[in-house]
C-alpha cells in the first residue's frame, strides 16, 4: 500500500516538478516581458560611492532608425519628439553621495559611457550602421553641433531645445563646462563602428568654470537637448546602460579621482505606437435669396443655410425681381435698379475653396438682351442710367460692424430685412472660445478684384457713370465657362457668406419685353 502510494507520490512529484518548471519558465518570461517596458529604472553597479536616485529620461524610445510621424513624414517628428529616435534628448538626474566637506574635493568632471551592460567590458549599444532600408539598424551615437567633438555649455530650461546641453546643480545651470565625445569601447556593436558612446564633461578654470561643491544628496542634472545638429541617436534595439562617474580633477579621470558612480538603464521599443485618425471631407454650400438670421428668432445655428425665399413667401424659390417695385419691377431709362442674392459655403478643405458663377445676361424670349456692363468682360464698371447694361458684384464689405450691426454697403439689404436682434445676441454670446462663430462674412474667401466692389452703394441708383459708387462686372462667356468670383487657398472655409448684388439699366433702344436669366453658383473646395 505504501509502495503504491509512493509510486503515486513519485508520479505526482514528477508531475509537480514538470508543472513547476513550466511555471518558472512562465515567470521568467513574464519577468523579461515586464522589463522590456520602457520605464525609468536603475541598475546597480559596483561603485564604492554610488549616486542615489539615478534616473534617465529619454525623449523617445523609438529605435534610432525611426524619425517619421504617423503619416510617414518628418513634419511632426522634430528632434526631441516622441516619434524621433534618431535625434533624441536625454535627461540624467541623480544625487551625489560624496560630500565635498568630507572628501575635501569638488566635482570637476563627469563621464557618461553608454554600454550594453552595467559593468565589465563595454560594447557600444546598437545593431549596425545606420540604415532605414529594411532590416533597419542603428547604433547609439552622440552627435555634437559644430565641429562635432566638443562644445560649450548652454543655458536653458529642461528639454526646451534652446540649447544643446546643460548641467544643473541643485536646479541651477552651471557655466563654463565643456563637453566632448569619443568612441570608447572594449568591443563594438558591429565591425567598423565609430559612433560616439562616451561623454566627458569638464569644468575648466580656463573657461572660468567653478567646480561643483556638492554636498551629500545634492541633485545633479545633465541634459542633452536634441536639435537638428546635436542629438543622441538611439540604438536599433535592446537595452543600454549609462555608466556615470564624477571626478575631483578635470585632467586626471581615473580611479584616483573618481568620487561617485552609478549606472542607469534604458531600453528602446521596437516601434512607437502610431495613432492615426481621419477627418473626412465635408462641404456645405447653399444659394438663395434670404439670410435666415434675418428672420429666425430664438436658437441660431452657427452656419444655417441660406433660404430660397422669405419664410411664408409665396414666390418661387431662388427668384428675385429686378426693377421698380411700384411698376411691376420694370426697368427705366432714368435710373438703375438692383437686387441681391446670397451664397454660403463651409468646407474643411485645408487648401481653401473657390466659388464661381455661371449664366447669361438678361435676355428676352425674342432674342433681345441687355448688354454686359462695361467695355470688356470682367471689368469693374460704374453703372450709368439710360445705358443698356447688366452686371453683378460681391459686396466685399459684407458685413462689417460691431454689435450695433452697421453694414456699410449692404445697408439696403439689412435695412429692408430688419436683421434679427436675437442673432446678434447669440453671436455676442459665442464670439470667443472654441465654439466661436461669426457674423455673416465672405472671409476667409476674398472676392476677385473685378467683382469686389458691389458694396458702397446708395439707394436711388441714379448713377451717372462718373460719380464714385459700386462697380459691377460680367462676362459674356459665363454661360459656358464659369467665372471665378471668390477664392482662398490657405485654410478651411469657415462659413463664408457672399452677398451678390445685381444691377440693370436700360436705354431707350432696349426692346420692350420680359427679360430673365439664371445665375448658378459653383463651389470647388480643394482638399
Amino acid at each position, binding site marked *: 500500500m505504501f509502495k503504491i502510494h509512493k509510486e*503515486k*507520490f513519485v508520479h505526482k*512529484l514528477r508531475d*509537480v516538478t*514538470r*508543472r513547476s518548471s*513550466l*511555471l518558472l519558465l*512562465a515567470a521568467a518570461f*513574464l519577468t523579461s*516581458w515586464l522589463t*522590456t517596458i520602457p520605464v525609468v529604472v536603475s541598475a546597480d553597479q559596483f561603485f564604492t560611492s554610488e549616486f542615489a536616485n539615478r534616473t534617465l529620461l529619454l525623449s523617445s524610445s523609438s529605435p534610432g532608425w525611426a524619425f517619421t510621424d*504617423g*503619416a*510617414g513624414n518628418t513634419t511632426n517628428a522634430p528632434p526631441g519628439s516622441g516619434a524621433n529616435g534618431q535625434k533624441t534628448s536625454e535627461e540624467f538626474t541623480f544625487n551625489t553621495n560624496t560630500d565635498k566637506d568630507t572628501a575635501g574635493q569638488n566635482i570637476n568632471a563627469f563621464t557618461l559611457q553608454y554600454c550594453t551592460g552595467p559593468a565589465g567590458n563595454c560594447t557600444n549599444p546598437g545593431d549596425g550602421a545606420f540604415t532605414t532600408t529594411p532590416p533597419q539598424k542603428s547604433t547609439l551615437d552622440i552627435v555634437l553641433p559644430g565641429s562635432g567633438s566638443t562644445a560649450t555649455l548652454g543655458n536653458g530650461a529642461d528639454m526646451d531645445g534652446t540649447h544643446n546641453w546643460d548641467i544643473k546643480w541643485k536646479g541651477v545651470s552651471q557655466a563654463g563646462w565643456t563637453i566632448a565625445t569619443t568612441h570608447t569601447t572594449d568591443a563594438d556593436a558591429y565591425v567598423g563602428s565609430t559612433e560616439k558612446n562616451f561623454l566627458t564633461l569638464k569644468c575648466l578654470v580656463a573657461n572660468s568654470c567653478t567646480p561643483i561643491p556638492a554636498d551629500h544628496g545634492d541633485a545633479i542634472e545633465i541634459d542633452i537637448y536634441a536639435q537638428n545638429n546635436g542629438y543622441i541617436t538611439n540604438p536599433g534595439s535592446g537595452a543600454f546602460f549609462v555608466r556615470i562617474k564624477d571626478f575631483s580633477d578635470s585632467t586626471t579621470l581615473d580611479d584616483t579621482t573618481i568620487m561617485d558612480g552609478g549606472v542607469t538603464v534604458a531600453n528602446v*521599443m*521596437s516601434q*512607437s*505606437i*502610431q*495613432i492615426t485618425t481621419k477627418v*473626412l*471631407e*465635408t*462641404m*456645405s454650400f447653399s*444659394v*438663395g435669396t434670404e439670410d435666415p438670421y434675418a428672420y429666425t428668432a430664438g436658437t441660431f445655428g452657427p452656419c444655417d443655410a441660406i433660404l*430660397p425665399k422669405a419664410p411664408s413667401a409665396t414666390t418661387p*424659390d*431662388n427668384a*428675385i*425681381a429686378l426693377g421698380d417695385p411700384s411698376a411691376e*419691377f420694370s*426697368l427705366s431709362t432714368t435710373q438703375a435698379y438692383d437686387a441681391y442674392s446670397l451664397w454660403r459655403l463651409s468646407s474643411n478643405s485645408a*487648401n481653401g475653396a473657390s466659388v464661381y458663377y*455661371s*449664366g447669361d445676361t*438678361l435676355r428676352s424670349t425674342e432674342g433681345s438682351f441687355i448688354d454686359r456692363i462695361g467695355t470688356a468682360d470682367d471689368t469693374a464698371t460704374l453703372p450709368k442710367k439710360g445705358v443698356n447694361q447688366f452686371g453683378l458684384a460681391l459686396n466685399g464689405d459684407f458685413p462689417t460692424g460691431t454689435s450695433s450691426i452697421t453694414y456699410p454697403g449692404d445697408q439696403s439689404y439689412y435695412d429692408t430685412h430688419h436683421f434679427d436682434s436675437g442673432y446678434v445676441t447669440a453671436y455676442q454670446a459665442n464670439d470667443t472660445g472654441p465654439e466661436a462663430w461669426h457674423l455673416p462674412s465672405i472671409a476667409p474667401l476674398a472676392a476677385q478684384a473685378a467683382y469686389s466692389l458691389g458694396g458702397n452703394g446708395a439707394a436711388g441708383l441714379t448713377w451717372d457713370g462718373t460719380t464714385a459708387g459700386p462697380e459691377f462686372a460680367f462676362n459674356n462667356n459665363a454661360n459656358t465657362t464659369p467665372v471665378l468670383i471668390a477664392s482662398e487657398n490657405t485654410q478651411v472655409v469657415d462659413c463664408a457668406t457672399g452677398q451678390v448684388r*445685381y444691377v*440693370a439699366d436700360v436705354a*431707350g433702344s*432696349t*426692346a*420692350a*419685353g*420680359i*427679360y*430673365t*436669366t*439664371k*445665375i*448658378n*453658383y*459653383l*463651389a*470647388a*473646395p*480643394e*482638399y
Partner: protein
Amino acid sequence: MQKVRWLAARLSPQRLLYAQLAIMLLCCGLFFGGHATAVVRFEPRSLYINSSVPGAATTYKVTMAYTTQTAVGSLDMLFCMDPIPYDPCVAPPGLDVSGAQYSESGSAPDTGYTLQTESPNHILLTRNPAVVVDGSQVTYTFDNVVNPTDTSHSFAIRLSDYASPSGSANMQPDGSIGVNDLDTIDLGSVLAQVGEGIEIETQVPPYLTFCINHTVEPDCSSTEGEAYTDLGTLDPSKPLTTTSQMAVATNAINGYSVSINGITMAAGTNVINALTVPTVSAPGNNQFGINLRANTSPNMGADPDGAGSAAVISPSYDVPNEFAYNDGDTLVSADSVAIGKRFTISYIVNSSPNIKPGVYTTTLTYFAIGNF
C-alpha cells in the same frame, strides 16, 4: 499522502498552464504589436464641375496629385453620397457617368489612362502600371457627366489608386473597401454640390413716342406751333406750301408705322385732286400732295434727322420735288426698335385758273402704331 493529493489537486493542470502561457505570449505579441499602417491621402485634390444645375450634363474635372510614388495601374472614382471609403456607397440620385468622355492634362507618368465605365456612378481609369510622380498635379476631365438631382446634400467622388490595372480586388459589391485593404495605395475624396441658381426677372416696359406740330424736337421733348395752318389764297401761278414736323421713337421689337388719313383739299363738292403718284409741282394745275424730303422746287422741307436709323420713308413720299397723297398711306415705318427720328412734311397745293371759288380745307390725321 493526503497532503500530496491535496498538493496535486491545487496545482493547475498541464493544459491550463499551457493555455496561460499561450495567453501570455499572445499578450506580449499584442503589446509589442506593431503599428497601424496609414493609407496616405492624395494631396491636393479638388473637383470642379462646369455647371451646378441639377440633372444637367456637364463637365467634371478632378485635379489631384499622387502622394505615394509607386507603380499605379488604375485610378478608381466612385461617386457616392458620402466620402467615407469604408462605408457602403449610395449613388447620388440622378447622377450618371456612363456616357462620360475622358480626357486628361498633365505630365506623364501621371497620365496615359483609358476610361472604363463600370456603372452609372463608377469610373475606372486603367493603364499599364507606371510609377507616378509625387506631388505633380494632373487633371482628369470627364465630359457629358449628368449631375445628380439632390440639391440638399453634397456628393463625393471617392478616389483610390492601385497597382493593378483592374482596380481593387477587394472592393465590396456595395462599393466599400476594407480599412486595411492592402491593394489601396492612396485615398481621398472630393466633394461638390449641385443647386438651383438664382432666377432674375425684369421687364422693359413698352413705349411709343410720337409728336407732331409745326416744329418738334427729335425726342419730342418740346413742340411749337398750332395744328391749324392757313395757306392763303390759291394762285394759279405758284403753289401754296407749308411744312410740319413729326418725331417717332419706340422700343417695340417690330418697330412702328405712321400713316396719314384724310381727304384732299375740298370746298364742298369741289376738290383739288390729290396726286396719287409722285408728281412734280405744276402751277396752274389742281394738285395736292406731300413729301418728307428736302425740296428745291419749291424750296421747302428737310430730310429726316435724329439718331434713329431704323425708320424709312415710304417710296411715294421719299422723292425730292415730287409729291403725292393717298388717304391711309403709310408715310414712315421701322421694322425694329427705333429711337427718335424727326421728319419734316412738305405740303403743296396748286390750282388751275378756272378752279371753282370756295374755301378749300382738309384735316389730316396721323396715326403712329407700335408693333410690339
